[in-house]
């Protein structure tokens, strides 16, 4: 793609909204006044019905019989449907076709959809949905990774990526460590739960408002469920109350059920599961077990490493293929691994099918290598930061990833030394050592961890986007693109791009809802790619119209085209200046088209999945964080005392939005690794299905000191939109520093003699257990016959 030409510094003073300025969120005035309309706020037509889903009460069972009589007999019930009533496909769109809308004789998790009911009120529908009498023939459920591995239960086949000869390099290394650790999954906990609202139109068409990161997929799933085609279904989403990956594939279930019931009854149907149901029914981040075997030298440089990942995918494939692939792609994180072998098992269990969540498998890969770095450092009794920097990718050498992509844009040597200095990492580590010596019951720990995150969908065809831009004759614009707004500020950034291109005030632009009728075949707003893809598509649309306006102005004012300049909400043609709105009116009168689509596809990327080689990522985003914590040795409770972050967003499109993404992503990652615990009982019932038991960070969990900065020299090597970088996912992984700071604090108990056994989530309970375990090991080390 061509380099962008507009640079605010060379164009004089722009009016509001140019690229690089901290424009507030385009909906902020609506958010603060309560006027922002979410799907549940759309006025309902008279006669609107409300739906609820009848769910499986068994983790794994055959359905012997279903008696829906009591459901039908509940007052207010208008319709009930099961798999037998489907006019089309019983498939919510997963790649393998193993995700039914309604269970067909077999249930595979507690909470699986079996039937749906439409009633005159939400309460009546929910009450009725609990009244079915279902007889099950119980089958043995597989509920955890270990059992799944033992029984070779997988949703898709195991993959292996390797380079060099890891076993040989490990054997030959001066030191060797082997181990296993585990970390849990995470619920997205978008504040606005899933919701869909279907309105039947003429000729069997269906309009569905869906809180979805991927309206295009919802459109196809709904069409197939109805036995129709894409042209018959329109899906719209103005905004979501948070998505975080949880609304990538998961909305299709709710949207198709609303549409099916709407189609059957001829009435509008809304479905909004309550929070507990939402958490029980919908997929989450994958939990993992990781085994590693690593050989390294005296400096901690890795000679060879083998990873064996096993993730809990739940009952179906959903996005588990690409999620686990991304784990493999991020098992190197920031480090050069010469001899490496990465095995990835995608375990099938009888729990909810896990799905996308900010980072999409990347965080789990990084967790593995960061764990290994920490273990090496504790073994060698050196600062973990030194082991990390020793293993960093080089510049011009040691720069090829295990999947044979050259790391061409490494800025970690700009980031890490600066952060080390500004956070006073070395000095604080010494101070902490002194503090821990004198403090018996409170121990502190510190850790610096880096992030290198690959940007692009690993499914190459997803890396495309479309936009639709209209300029009205009064000089105002409607901007549409395939991206969705979930709070991340995508609409704001794309509007800035258009304002910049046309050198107009951003207030001229109305961002319109994501709508399958406006931009077709749009990819999910995911993989952090929203502004990279849609920004470029919108810029292309703006350039097309700008070209027409330039040509028109050149003719109209009889000047050469290169003397037509867009600036300051106006257009100069030679020595004449005309307000933007006047030019658009003149252009309209002269019959110039003022509407255009724009299209973009990411260049350079290619990737052969069979050999795990190629260039799956257009570029990498980088960052690093230093976290300091204090634990209470008697209770396991802890506080995050201070966090310093330096993160690379390239040339920021909007520094306020980017900082917000970094802060929010970090805290969300911290939640994953500390307080958020998914816990299933022996029957496969999720027991932490509400904020009463599932603890996302609250305001008092924020680090007491929280210094977040953008890398000032940041600039994307690739010609992305205004040389910016994606920011949605990468900051989440900065929170790995919190887990390692906690490990460091626990290790402080024994004077850093032993490495703590502390996986994630490191709840206070887990920290306390790790302390107990460490104390026991210290005791047994004192006894000559003790076993470590």
């Amino acid at each position: 793609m061509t380099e962008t030409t507009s640079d605010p510094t060379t164009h004089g003073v722009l009016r509001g909204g140019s690229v690089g300025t901290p424009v507030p969120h385009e909906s902020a005035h609506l958010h603060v006044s309560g006027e922002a309309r979410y799907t549940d706020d759309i006025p309902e037509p008279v006669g609107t019905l409300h739906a609820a889903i009848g769910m499986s009460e068994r983790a794994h069972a055959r359905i012997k019989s279903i008696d829906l009589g009591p459901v039908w007999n509940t007052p207010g019930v208008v319709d009930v449907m099961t798999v037998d009533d489907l006019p089309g496909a019983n498939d919510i769109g997963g790649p393998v076709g193993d995700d039914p809308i309604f269970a067909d004789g077999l249930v595979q998790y507690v909470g699986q959809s079996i039937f749906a009911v439409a009633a005159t009120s939400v309460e009546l529908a929910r009450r009725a949905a609990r009244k079915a009498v279902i007889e099950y023939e119980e089958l043995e459920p597989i509920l955890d990774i270990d059992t799944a591995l033992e029984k070779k239960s997988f949703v898709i086949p195991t993959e292996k990526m390797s380079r060099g000869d890891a076993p040989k390099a490990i054997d030959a290394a001066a030191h060797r460590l082997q181990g296993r650790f585990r970390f849990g999954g995470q619920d997205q906990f978008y504040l606005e739960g899933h919701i869909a609202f279907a309105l039947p139109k003429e000729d069997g068409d269906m309009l569905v408002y869906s809180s979805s990161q991927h309206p295009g997929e919802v459109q196809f799933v709904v069409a197939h469920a109805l036995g129709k085609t894409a042209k018959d279904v329109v899906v719209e989403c103005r905004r979501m109350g948070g998505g975080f990956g949880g609304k990538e594939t998961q909305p299709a279930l709710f949207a198709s059920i609303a549409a099916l019931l709407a189609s059957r009854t001829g009435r509008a149907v809304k479905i909004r599961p309550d929070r507990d149901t939402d958490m029980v029914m919908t997929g989450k981040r994958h939990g993992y077990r990781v085994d590693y075997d690593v050989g390294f030298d005296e400096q901690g440089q890795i000679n060879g490493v083998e990873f064996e990942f096993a993730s809990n995918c739940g009952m179906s494939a959903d996005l588990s293929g690409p999620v686990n692939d991304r784990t493999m792609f991020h098992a190197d994180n920031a480090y050069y691994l010469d001899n490496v072998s990465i095995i990835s098992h995608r375990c099938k269990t009888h729990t909810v099918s896990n799905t996308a969540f900010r980072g999409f498998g990347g965080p789990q890969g990084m967790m593995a290598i960061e764990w290994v770095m920490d273990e090496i450092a504790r073994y060698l009794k050196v600062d973990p930061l030194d082991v990390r920097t020793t293993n960093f990718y080089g510049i011009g050498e040691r720069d090829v990833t295990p999947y044979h992509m050259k790391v061409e844009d490494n800025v970690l040597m700009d980031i890490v030394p600066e952060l080390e200095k500004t956070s006073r990492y070395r000095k604080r580590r010494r101070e902490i050592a002194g503090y821990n010596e004198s403090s018996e019951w409170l121990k502190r720990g510190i850790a610096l961890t880096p992030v290198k995150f690959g940007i692009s969908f690993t499914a190459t065809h997803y890396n495309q986007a479309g936009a639709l831009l209209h300029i009205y004759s009064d000089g105002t614009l409607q901007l549409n693109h395939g991206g969705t707004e979930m709070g991340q500020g995508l609409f704001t950034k794309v509007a800035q791009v258009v304002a910049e291109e046309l050198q107009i005030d951003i207030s001229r632009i109305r961002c319109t809802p994501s709508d399958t009728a406006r931009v077709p075949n749009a990819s999910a707003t995911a993989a952090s790619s929203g502004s990279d893809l849609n920004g470029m598509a919108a810029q292309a649309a703006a350039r097309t119209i700008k070209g027409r306006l330039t040509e028109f102005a050149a003719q109209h004012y009889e000047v050469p085209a290169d003397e037509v300049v867009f600036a300051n909400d106006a257009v100069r043609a030679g020595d004449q200046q005309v307000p933007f709105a006047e030019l658009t009116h003149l252009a309209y009168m002269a019959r110039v088209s003022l509407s255009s689509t724009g299209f973009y596809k990411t260049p350079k990327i290619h990737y052969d999945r069979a050999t795990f080689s190629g260039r799956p990522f257009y570029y990498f985003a980088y960052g690093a964080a230093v976290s300091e914590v204090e634990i209470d040795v008697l209770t396991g409770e802890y506080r995050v005392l201070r966090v310093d972050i330096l993160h690379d967003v390239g040339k920021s499109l909007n520094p306020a939005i980017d900082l917000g993404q970094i802060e929010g992503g970090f805290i969300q990652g911290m939640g994953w690794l500390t307080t958020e615990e998914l816990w299933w009982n022996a029957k496969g019932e999720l027991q932490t299905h509400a904020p009463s038991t599932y603890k996302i960070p609250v305001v008092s969990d924020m680090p007491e000191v929280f210094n977040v900065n953008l890398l000032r020299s940041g600039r994307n090597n690739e010609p992305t939109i205004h040389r910016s970088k994606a920011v949605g996912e990468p900051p989440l992984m900065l929170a790995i520093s919190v887990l390692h700071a906690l490990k460091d604090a626990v290790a402080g108990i024994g004077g850093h003699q032993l490495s703590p056994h502390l996986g994630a989530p490191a709840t206070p309970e887990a920290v306390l257990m790790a302390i107990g375990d460490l104390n026991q090991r210290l005791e047994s080390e004192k006894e000559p016959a003790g076993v470590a």
Partner: protein
Amino acid sequence: MSVKIEVEVNGTRHEREVDPRLLLVHFLREELSLTGTNVGCETSLCGACTVKMDGLTVKSCTQLAVQADGASITTIEGLSPEGELHPLQQAFWDEHGLQCGYCTPGMILAAEGLLAVNPSPGESEIRESLKGNLCRCTGYHNIVKAIQSAAKGGA
């Protein structure tokens, strides 16, 4: 069975016959079309549905509409006169104290409740008093800044 209630909401009196089981949040959203009050968890833990009732902040998902009989309620729509913004609303906007916006109305009303009793809270007081309002997007940093900024401005 329905019960007659009389409630003042944002300065306007409303008389309605309601089901005794009707929750206040549904009364506000469905009966009065005040959809700025959001439903988050329905168990009084997330705070998205926070409103003010007789000067106190309450979570409207665990109040019954009949409990509001005779009460005076302020929702986000009534926090400031039409066309104007309350200093907290302005501060959340200016300080980027929001992303998806779903928690924002409840967060602002909870903050208003804090400032009503403590007009210039320290950072730690803000952190303590807003624990009952969850935000999944922002990491809270700018929310705390917004409240501090509004407090300084004399909210």
